[in-house]
């Protein structure tokens, strides 16, 4: 009996073992079947996904640490169709809050693209509006049970950062802007786009939550500190706006730079845009050169160019400050008669008088005495017709015609000497004239003061350009230009501070001919003369109250200089010299 039980047990155990073995065999067979391989391949396709981690865009500060460009949170608003209960309520709430089309929203929600369970209704919604909708959703859900008709169940809010400019339009021409796709346009945003944006990191991430993947270290974009002084920029824009109104000028700009280092403190232009509404770009500007005319807009500068002509004449030994000549009021050059601005003869003049009275005939005399070769060599050395290398996008090189060019004529040697027939940008003039204020050596204008990365600040060293004139020439011309302003009792003078500078009134070429009724009025000046710490360039385009720079641009320079010395903490000459003696 016992044996029978034993046998039966053995048979049962054997059957069970056989069954277990069959299961193992079947499992092995299934796992190694061609179908299993297909499934494995399919699962591998979903086992990992590429995920890109975008670093935060670097911020932009002014030289005093005030934020000029940062980031704010905005919202993408969408609907999860799988849990949405009342599209009418959602469409009504969103259209009412954001001013969107109700029917359009209904159409999107009721006819979604196939296979989508989440659809975006609207993006780039301000935090205030998004929070209002969130509160509304919460209130409706509290009143009615979740999922009931009338609630906003399914409405979802996804926050993400967007570039924001707390100063709105202030310094817009310097900063540029960032599109919604994250690309920088114009100014610092375009020039330093790759630095500010940082490097996105793309990694293969396992979808299996059991596998801890490596979190990539995507460092934030580099933070930039500019040489710009926000308060000085605001003052410059304020003074410019007032001047445009007072003098009825069409456009204008004021640029302020340290002539010893090339640091740009401010660049005010008349056309500015609120960078937080960059999509209005087309309404503000008709072409890219208008965004920052300080670096992009070439024009015939007129008599400010005489600084360079005189520098060349002194440096080449053609004249000395004491050299005299008899001004007859006109001179023939290249078959064309050139006259002074007032068409009058000024008699015997030395070189300081020549600058003081801004005599065209004198300048033509100097350039013809130097000869085309020497004159254009100096202009080339001053960088006329070349990019200055300023670290802002969209710099224009200007144009200097030279002998040999198809459109160069002998008369150009004369007219170029007093700033007609040659196109320069204001930044080019500042860079060139900085040689006079900086011991003969030109500076390279720049707006980047330092970069901050990983908590460390790296200051950018000042860079210098060519040395077109000697230190002695620079000192001599510096003094001549200061004296010429003082003797002229110029409106450019700054009480308490000795400044040097030059006006520039230029006729405007229209369709190949100069329009006698309209002028560009400019002034370039710097101070204090014995230790220049600021250089200011003023350009007012087509003023209507007077055509002369001495009456338009010179007083604007003076007003700007008076604000500059206060904001840059530059004491009057007398106090500064007393302090230096201690």
């Amino acid at each position, binding site marked *: 009996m016992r044996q029978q039980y034993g046998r039966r047990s053995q048979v049962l155990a054997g059957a069970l073992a056989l069954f277990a073995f069959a299961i193992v065999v079947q499992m092995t067979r299934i796992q190694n079947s061609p179908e299993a391989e297909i499934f494995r391949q399919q699962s591998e396709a979903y086992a990992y996904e590429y995920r890109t981690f975008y670093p935060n865009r670097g911020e932009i500060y002014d030289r005093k640490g005030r934020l000029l460009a940062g980031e704010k949170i905005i919202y993408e608003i969408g609907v999860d169709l799988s849990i949405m209960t009342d599209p009418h309520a959602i469409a009504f709430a969103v259209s009412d809050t954001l001013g969107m089309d109700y029917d359009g929203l209904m159409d999107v929600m009721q006819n979604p693209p196939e296979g989508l369970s989440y659809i975006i209704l609207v993006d780039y919604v301000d935090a205030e509006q998004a929070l209002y909708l969130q509160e509304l959703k919460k209130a409706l859900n509290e009143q009615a049970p979740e999922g009931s008709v009338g609630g906003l169940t399914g409405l979802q809010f996804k926050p993400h*950062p967007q570039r924001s400019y707390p100063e709105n339009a202030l310094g817009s021409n310097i900063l540029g802007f960032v599109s919604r796709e994250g690309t920088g346009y114009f100014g610092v945003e375009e020039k330093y786009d790759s630095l500010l944006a940082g490097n996105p990191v793309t990694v293969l991430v396992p979808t299996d939550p059991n596998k801890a993947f490596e979190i990539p*270290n995507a460092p934030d974009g580099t933070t930039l500190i500019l040489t710009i002084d926000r308060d000085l920029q605001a003052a410059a824009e304020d003074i410019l706006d007032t001047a445009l109104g007072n003098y009825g000028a069409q456009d204008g700009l004021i640029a302020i730079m340290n002539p010893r280092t090339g640091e740009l403190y401010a660049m005010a232009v008349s056309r500015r845009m609120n960078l937080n509404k960059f999509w209005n770009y087309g309404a503000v500007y008709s072409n890219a050169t208008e965004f920052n005319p300080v670096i992009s807009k070439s024009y015939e500068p007129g008599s400010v160019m005489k600084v360079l002509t005189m520098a060349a004449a002194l440096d080449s030994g053609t004249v000395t400050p004491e050299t005299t000549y008899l001004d007859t009021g006109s001179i023939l050059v290249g078959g064309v008669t050139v006259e002074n601005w007032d068409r009058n003869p000024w008699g015997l003049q030395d070189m300081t008088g020549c600058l003081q009275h801004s005599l065209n005939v004198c300048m033509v005399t100097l350039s013809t005495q130097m000869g085309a070769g020497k004159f254009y060599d100096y202009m080339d050395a001053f960088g006329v017709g070349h990019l200055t290398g300023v670290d802002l996008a969209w710099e224009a090189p200007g144009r200097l015609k030279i002998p040999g060019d198809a459109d160069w004529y002998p008369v150009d040697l004369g007219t170029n000497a007093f700033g007609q027939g040659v196109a320069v940008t204001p930044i080019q003039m500042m860079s060139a004239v900085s040689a006079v204020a900086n011991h003969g050596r030109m500076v390279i204008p720049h707006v980047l003061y330092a970069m901050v990365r990983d908590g460390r600040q790296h200051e950018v060293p000042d860079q210098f350009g060519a040395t077109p004139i000697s230190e002695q020439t620079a000192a001599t011309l510096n003094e001549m230009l200061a004296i010429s302003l003082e003797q002229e009792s110029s409106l450019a003078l700054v009480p308490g501070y000795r400044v040097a500078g030059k006006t520039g009134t230029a006729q405007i070429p229209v369709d190949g001919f100069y329009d006698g009724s309209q002028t560009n009025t400019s002034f370039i000046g710097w101070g204090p003369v014995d230790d220049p710490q600021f250089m200011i360039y003023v350009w007012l385009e087509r003023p209507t109250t007077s055509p002369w720079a001495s009456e338009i641009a010179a007083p604007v320079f003076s007003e700007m200089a008076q604000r500059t010395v206060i904001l840059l903490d530059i004491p009057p000459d007398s106090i500064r010299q007393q302090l230096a003696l201690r």
Partner: protein
Amino acid sequence: MNIPNHLPNVNHLIQAYRVAPWRVQRQWIGNALLIVLALAMVAALYLHVTSRTAIAGREIQDLTDAIATSRQVSSDLQTQLAGLTSAASMESRAREMGYRPVEPDELEYLAVPGYVAQDAVDLSSSAQPQLNVLTISPEYNQSLLDWMDERLVSTRRFQ
């Protein structure tokens, strides 16, 4: 085995000391159960470790998201603060309080010995170490199988 009849006592003795069949079966069953138990323990341990790893992985991801969110909120607040202290806003507030821009002849310069005016801001800060998986000890991000695999690989490498 044939046992001589003249040795009945020996038979009894062998019979007495022979392991009963049910005992042998029980030993087999016991051994099998031991193996099953050991396997179950290893499986349970593995499940425990992997579930903890998964939870830790999720927590790390959540914390990373929280850090990113905090940074965004911080940037947002910083931008809001900058807007409140913008040049236009500060000027407007100053005028409301009765202030006006200073005129050059109203300024008085005082020489303060030893004072050096700061030319520009210094935004450098102490570098903070970035925490990532590479800086976390393997004990906290490695599964048991990963650890065994690593051991095997290293053993093979040194053979």
